[in-house]
């Protein structure tokens, strides 16, 4: 007769408990909240590139001594966002809560309405809401257009592949701008677009890219992670997304449209500190003119880009900075073959 002893059960439980508490231990907060307290509330782990950009900008502001920063990530889409936000608003009482509302729109807006004294700035495909709910998004269609120009000039087979997550407005914007850029330089370029219906399934993204290569693509745009791995395997040029991804394949990743949240964060801090904060769409602060978006440096690939193509791209880039060239914002779902 062998029954699990109580001791046995207790030891197991205690072990699991220790493991969990070690994993969940909060960061010790420093005393003296003289600076603005900013709280980050992220639905995904901050390793996800979109939330990672916000997180990086907040870390930078903290390092520069402008704010105190705390965050919770991996909140998910199963209803925890509202609870987390209410707890934070009640207990930490931050001046600003920044996060992503995609998939949690209603929860974030409900909480914001109940705490009018806290500034809420959330990544969202929808509009701002008075008095305190601001929205932002990545508006990197301008550098995506420039990457498209480069891709159109670099392809030998006149076929370019784009692998995206979901056809949401943001991804459509980037993809359509990329296609338009490719067509400007190379009207014969064919652009294949595959969606994998996941923000993070790099193995599937790589397979999608390999399928595009089988269909003739020789330049790839990695809206999602995993595509550059396919380019690396086949020795093809690729473009990253969201941050400078050159280090994934230094000889092959030509450039990436880069999103930079620093201008948004700095503007928010200034507004809140001066008491001038109102709900607004912060999208301008994520665009090229205000430094919220840029084309990543070419690194080692610069020598491989034909000089006339490079000159054309540089000229367009300058025109965008000067406000003389406007990249169309097209949020329609792109066709599978363009």
């Amino acid at each position: 007769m062998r029954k699990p002893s109580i001791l046995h059960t207790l030891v197991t439980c205690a072990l699991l408990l220790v493991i969990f508490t070690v994993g969940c231990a909060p960061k010790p907060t420093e005393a003296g909240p003289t600076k603005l307290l900013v709280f980050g509330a992220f639905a995904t782990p901050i390793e996800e590139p979109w939330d990672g950009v916000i997180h990086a900008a907040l870390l930078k502001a903290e390092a520069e001594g402008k704010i105190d920063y705390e965050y919770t990530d991996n909140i998910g889409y199963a209803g925890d966002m509202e609870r987390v936000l209410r707890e934070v608003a009640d207990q930490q009482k931050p001046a600003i809560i920044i996060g992503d509302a995609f998939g949690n729109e209603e929860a974030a807006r409900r909480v914001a309405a109940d705490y009018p004294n806290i500034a809420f700035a959330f990544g969202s495909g929808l509009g701002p809401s008075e008095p305190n709910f601001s929205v932002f998004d990545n508006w990197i269609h301008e550098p995506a257009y420039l990457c498209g120009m480069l891709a159109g000039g670099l392809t030998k087979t006149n076929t370019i592949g784009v692998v995206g997550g979901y056809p949401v407005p943001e991804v459509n914007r980037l993809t359509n701008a990329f296609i338009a850029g490719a067509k400007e330089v190379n009207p014969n370029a064919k652009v294949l677009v595959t969606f994998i219906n996941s923000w993070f399934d790099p193995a599937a993204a790589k397979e999608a890219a390999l399928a595009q290569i089988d269909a003739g693509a020789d330049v790839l745009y990695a809206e999602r992670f995993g595509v550059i791995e396919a380019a690396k395997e086949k020795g093809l040029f690729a473009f990253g997304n969201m941050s400078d991804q050159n280090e994934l394949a230094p000889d092959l990743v030509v450039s990436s449209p880069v999103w930079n949240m620093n201008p948004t964060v700095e503007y928010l801090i200034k507004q809140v500190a001066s008491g001038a904060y109102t709900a607004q769409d912060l999208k301008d602060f994520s665009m090229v003119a205000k430094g919220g978006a840029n084309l990543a440096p070419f690194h080692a690939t610069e020598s491989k880009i034909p000089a006339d193509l490079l000159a054309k791209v540089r000229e367009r880039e300058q025109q965008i900075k000067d406000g003389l060239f406007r990249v169309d914002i097209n949020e329609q779902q792109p066709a599978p073959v363009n």
Partner: protein
Amino acid sequence: MEVFLIGLIAATLRVATPLILGTLGELFAERAGILNLGIEGTMFCGAFVGFVVGGATGNLWLGVLAAIVAGILAGLLMGLLSVRLGVSQHVSGLGITLLLTGLSLFGFRLIFGEPRIPPSIAPFERLPILSQVPILGEILGQYALTYIALALVPVCWWMLYRTNFGLQIRAVGENPEAADAAGVNVFLTRYLALAIAGGLMAAGGAFLSLAQLGAFTYGIIAGRGWVCIALIIFGNWQPVRVLWGALLFGGVSALQLRLQTTGLDLPYEMFLALPYLVTIAALAVAGRNATYPAALLKAYKRE
């Protein structure tokens, strides 16, 4: 057409590899009477441990080995909960998936911090000699782990149906009381089956991080563990039929990605749904005669 077909077959084998390893693992667990829903977390943990050890030592095979060891430990933990303590298999399995997913991500941050770009290492190469075979090189030049996964199918069949140990596994999965009366150590057999299962699942995860990508990210398993659970039912708990299931799912997955590039004027979601639709359809046909291991989900307690 030739490129299309050859690319399709090559991709099928690649996509199927982690599924084959995962299903073979789950097969051992379920044949011993334990539904191991820890599979998703065990694969994730395998991908993580494999990547860390492979990257740190510079020896990818050592990474695979470490992943297998981690998987065995995960299997033994499942055994402690579901075999020794008799906890509900659903609860303990899902608990292990949550635990291992969380622990792996936690470990990832401890080791790598918060990198903006996922850290990467040089992954396994495709087998060099076979890659140079004319025409079929693309198909034959697979990762060594793919060949190992395929070779494991007959090995697992032989173990389950031709060895004393396999007989014991099947016996404790069908009728643990009778097996016990016949002198089989039910607890030990189930522990061993779960250990083998965990090792195989973790190897499937390590394939993704060490061969397919050379990187570890969150979401790297992306539900492949759950697909394995369905493929077991599809394969009626038999190794060879499970292989066909994994190849079917992998094949349709690879096919739909290729169909998307042809510009067929259909919503892309239709293509993405294809592997699941085909699996459901196949399940509806094949699953009607499914013969579950009789003691599945039942904790065994000696009277």
